[in-house]
């Protein structure tokens, strides 16, 4: 037989390669030298009229061993073994029968062959022996999951089996039912009554299986689930596993009902009761369920936290892990609730299990205070090299948010990030670090220079092209505005010498930006760029040539082309491409004129979809989206409108406000943009009626109360697009130094043209119409921006004490001090500093530090001293420091008016 040969060949190879290991292996494994062909041939003894029970068992084990080792059988092989295997049903030997069951499940080749065993299995399903019945049920359901015809034949037996007094039979039927529910749900649904009966079983696992199946049958019927849960929470569920299931179903009911009911949460008492169950599995399931409830309150959390805290000091690593992982999650939303566990948590930092240590560290980073930062960092550094990349990423994320919380700690934290950046690590890990540093550079102005130099060092030895190009781009953008731009040139030019083409090209672009912004560096940059002209990559050469021309080293004048270097091309790429294509077709006899490409000005009627900036800006500010990119997107859009381009730097854009009810004919949203001397109202309008075309759209604003702004001009919208946003603008002048607040009544004006339904075209003549919008309010807050300060105390003391204005306000009775703090911060809309937005538990007084910036670059710092008396009435003393006394007054005005 051919099968023999490879065996000897394989043995020969092994003999020569590893003689020593051989003997050991041989002694150890009864399967040494096993070979598929030989075993398959051996399996023919299944067909012998006299069944050798032991030999057959042995062969089945060998077959299963081969399968387990990943030795796949071909269809023909499987079919042959399967067929001869079914002959073994003739034997009465119980252990052999058990192996046959297992073999059928593992080897069953396809549904065509199933038919040959069904009669044997059905016979076993009717056997007096429970273990035959249970196994036959499992095997039959396993191999004929989608064969509804066959299943309906045996349905009667399955139904009976569900309520069988022997747990092995009942469990087999119930678990098979769960599997069948996927393919033949109607059959399983008919067992409802029996399954319900099985839920009362005394056997723990049967009860759990019945409960799981019953829930799966009913899961699409909320009312039924709710009823089931209600009745079960009252009765005594015995098995821990069933209790865990019940907790899951209860949580689901809670999650679905919490929106409707206020006050006491349904079933909370049940969950809390489960915290006193004797099985740890149940206690933990309940604690986790409580921690995951929507809008969980501190009071509800407390008992759960208490049991989790006990688990933290368990001798079982799994229990410690489970507890710390849950607490870590809680710390994201309720850092204060977890602070009680800090001592236990700190001892976990040295846990043998690195996963537990990492979770403990990151939890501490979330709940810790400023003074513990250095100590924690030291502990983290000691084990960073031991843990897996995915955990390192978790740590990096935690460090980043810590740094944003305590900006004045940036030197240590930044240092930590740069240290780990130098160590070994995969792409995702490095990316997380680089992104964290980029984040810090963006949000903490003081951290910019050190962050940039860390990144410079990193690209010296960075194996990831993507990260190198990201960093080079950032260097090009931020580097020229630093104190000593020249020092970055060397780092960037090194990349041109040493890196691949993609990185070289970005380095060239970055260099060019230095040349364009920093006058005195320009000659040097030009020399460097000239060297790049001989690069062997097209893209690098092209960029160098282009930038040289733009910097004025070529014949084109620098004055006209320099802006192109600094701003992005404000043309839709699709249009540009189309225009260039036409140009190429036309024979290229004239110079291409870029001005003939339509720009992205969003009010050009049916604007091309490529107006990415406009689309981004018109999306209502998503809560999670960071503020800065949103503002950048606005600035970009506004900059492209010639009339608005000269207004200076955009100071602040408000969140969009809906000026129309939902589901009306027209949808209008307004965003207020504050510029140094102007306020621009951007109206995003959208038409929802197909039968009409709206043209010449504008908004008329009439002041109704408060100080007036001087209207300068209106930019109408040529045509209001259907179901998409078009923009019209009103620009108002603001006297310098004034913070005009007031209300404006707004009216949408437009020309309506009916659309002829037969042709789909608009009629020639239209009529003018208007539509009343909601009022717009301009408040002091529109002129105030959140800004972080890295050292509040220093900034505070830098402002003359004389300039401080203090007042005390009563806030009335409040639920908690925390709530009062949040309320005042909401009113002021300023940036909380140094984590002072969080009140420690049980505190009777608290100080919060806020910082902000008024338009015109006027820094405002606020200290809030909160105190609470016996009757929970909260009073706050507000101390404001600002160089401009009028501004300080404004801040007080905001509070007193609120």
């Amino acid at each position, binding site marked *: 037989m051919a099968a023999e040969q490879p065996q000897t060949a394989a043995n020969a190879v092994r003999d020569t390669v590893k003689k020593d290991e051989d003997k050991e292996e041989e002694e*150890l494994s009864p399967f040494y030298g096993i070979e598929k062909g030989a075993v398959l041939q051996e399996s023919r003894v299944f067909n012998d009229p006299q069944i050798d029970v032991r030999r057959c*068992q042995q062969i089945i*084990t060998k077959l299963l*061993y081969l399968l387990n080792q990943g030795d796949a059988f071909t269809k023909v092989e499987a079919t042959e073994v399967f067929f001869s295997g079914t002959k073994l049903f003739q034997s009465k030997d119980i252990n052999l029968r058990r192996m046959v069951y297992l073999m059928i499940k593992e080897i069953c080749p396809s549904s065509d062959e199933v038919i040959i065993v069904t009669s044997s299995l059905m016979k076993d399903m009717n056997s007096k022996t429970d273990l035959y019945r249970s196994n036959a049920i499992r095997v039959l359901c396993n191999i004929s999951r989608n064969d509804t015809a066959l299943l309906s034949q045996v349905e009667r037996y399955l139904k009976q089996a569900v309520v069988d007094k022997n747990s092995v039979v009942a469990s087999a039927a119930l678990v098979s039912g*769960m599997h069948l529910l996927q393919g033949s749900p109607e059959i399983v649904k008919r067992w409802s009554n029996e399954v319900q009966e099985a839920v009362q079983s005394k056997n723990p696992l049967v009860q759990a299986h019945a409960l*799981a199946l019953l829930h799966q049958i009913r899961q699409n019927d909320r009312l039924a689930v709710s009823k089931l849960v209600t009745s079960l929470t009252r009765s005594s569920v015995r098995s821990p596993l069933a209790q865990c299931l019940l907790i899951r179903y209860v949580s689901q009911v809670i999650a679905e009902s919490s929106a409707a009911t206020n006050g006491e949460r349904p079933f909370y008492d049940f969950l809390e009761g489960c915290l006193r169950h004797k099985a740890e599995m149940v206690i933990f*399931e309940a604690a986790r369920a409580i921690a995951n409830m929507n809008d969980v309150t501190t009071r509800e959390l407390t008992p759960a936290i208490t049991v989790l805290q006990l688990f933290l000091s368990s001798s079982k690593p799994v229990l410690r892990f489970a507890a710390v992982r849950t607490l870590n999650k809680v710390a994201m939303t309720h850092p204060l609730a977890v602070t009680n566990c800090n001592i236990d948590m700190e001892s976990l930092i040295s846990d043998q299990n690195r996963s537990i240590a990492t979770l403990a560290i990151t939890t501490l980073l979330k709940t810790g205070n400023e003074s513990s930062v250095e100590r924690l960092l030291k502990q983290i550094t000691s084990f960073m090299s031991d843990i897996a990349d995915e955990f390192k990423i978790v740590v990096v994320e935690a460090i980043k948010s810590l740094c944003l919380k305590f900006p004045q700690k940036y030197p240590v934290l930044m240092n930590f990030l740069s240290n780990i950046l130098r160590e070994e690590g995969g792409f995702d890990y490095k990316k997380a670090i680089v992104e964290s540093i980029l984040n810090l550079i963006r949000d903490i102005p003081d951290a910019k220079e050190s962050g940039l130099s860390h990144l410079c060092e990193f690209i010296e030895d960075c194996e990831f092209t993507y990260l190198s190009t990201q960093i080079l781009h950032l260097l090009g953008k931020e580097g020229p505005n630093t104190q000593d731009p020249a020092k970055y040139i060397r780092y960037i030019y090194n990349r041109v010498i040493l890196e691949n083409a993609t990185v070289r090209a970005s380095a060239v672009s970055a260099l060019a930006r230095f040349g364009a912004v920093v006058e005195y560096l320009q000659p040097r940059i030009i020399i460097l760029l000239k060297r790049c002209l001989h690069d062997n990559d097209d893209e690098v050469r092209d960029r160098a040539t282009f930038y040289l021309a733009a910097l004025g080293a070529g014949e084109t004048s620098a004055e006209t082309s320099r802006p192109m270097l600094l701003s992005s091309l404000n043309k839709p790429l699709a249009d540009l491409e189309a225009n260039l294509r036409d140009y190429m077709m036309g024979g290229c006899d004239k110079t291409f004129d870029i001005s003939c490409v339509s720009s992205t000005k969003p009010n050009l009627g049916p604007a091309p979809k490529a107006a990415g900036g406009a689309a981004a800006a018109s999306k209502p500010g998503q809560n999670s989206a960071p503020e800065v990119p949103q503002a950048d997107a606005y600035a970009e859009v506004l900059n492209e409108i010639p009339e608005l381009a000269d207004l200076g730097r955009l100071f602040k854009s408000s969140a969009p406000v809906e000026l129309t009810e939902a589901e009306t004919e027209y949808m209008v949203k307004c965003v207020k943009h504050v510029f140094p001397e102007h306020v621009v109202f951007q109206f995003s309008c959208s038409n929802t009626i197909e039968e009409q075309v709206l043209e010449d759209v504008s908004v008329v604003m009439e002041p109704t109360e408060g100080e007036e702004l001087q209207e300068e001009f209106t930019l109408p919208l040529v045509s209001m697009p259907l179901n998409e946003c078009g923009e019209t603008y009103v620009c108002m002048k603001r006297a310098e130094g004034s913070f005009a607040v007031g209300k404006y009544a707004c009216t949408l004006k437009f020309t309506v043209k009916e659309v002829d339904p037969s042709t789909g075209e608009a009629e020639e003549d239209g009529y003018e119409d208007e539509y009343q919008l909601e009022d717009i309010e301009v408040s002091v807050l529109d002129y105030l921006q959140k800004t972080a300060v890295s050292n509040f105390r220093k900034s505070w003391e830098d402002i003359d004490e004389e300039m401080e204005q203090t007042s005390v306000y009563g806030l009335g009775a409040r639920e908690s001090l925390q709530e009062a703090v949040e309320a005042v911060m909401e009113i002021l809309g300023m940036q909380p500093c140094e984590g002072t937005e969080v009140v420690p538990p049980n505190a009777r007084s608290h100080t919060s530090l806020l910082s902000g910036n008024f338009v015109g670059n006027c820094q405002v710092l606020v200290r809030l001293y909160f105190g609470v008396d016996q009757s929970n009435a909260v009073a706050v003393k507000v101390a404001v420091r600002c160089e401009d006394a009028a501004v300080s007054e404004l801040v007080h005005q905001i509070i007193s008016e609120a």
Partner: protein
Amino acid sequence: METSCPLIKNILILDGEGKRIAVKYYGNEWATPGAQATFEKSVFSKTQRTNARGEAEIIMFDNVITVFKFVSDLHFYVTGNQDENELILVTVLQALFDAISLLLRNAVEKKTVLENLDLVLLTLDEIVDGGVILETEASVIASRVTMRGADSDLPLSEQTFTQALASAKEQIARSLLN
């Protein structure tokens, strides 16, 4: 789905070098032998250096949770979804280990496990069915594996569990040595 019943993704028994002894995967997450080998390699290398000889240990990676326990030259692993209750997974691991200890009369090592591989494979089959936990009581699992009480010739009262076990073991040992 958050409210589903606990599911096991796989059960692995590897040797001291990470080689397969017996494994069972449920569901299609690691559908090919290659994917399974990669998973086994990574779980082995990540856990290799831990001391999981006393209490069961735990690790989370690639969106799964694995609990594991090492005994002599064997590594036992049970893996579940990352949202799974860790204590349920560890119950399964403990059941697996205890049942095998019972069946092998505490001689839990690579040699005996391979010699009694049929018992071990049956144990896997009796603990979890298609990912659903079937039974967690070690003595119950062991008696189901040996089909105790199924032999109609010998009434249950006359054959103790140990006897049944002994006869089963004897049979298998003999058959494998043939």
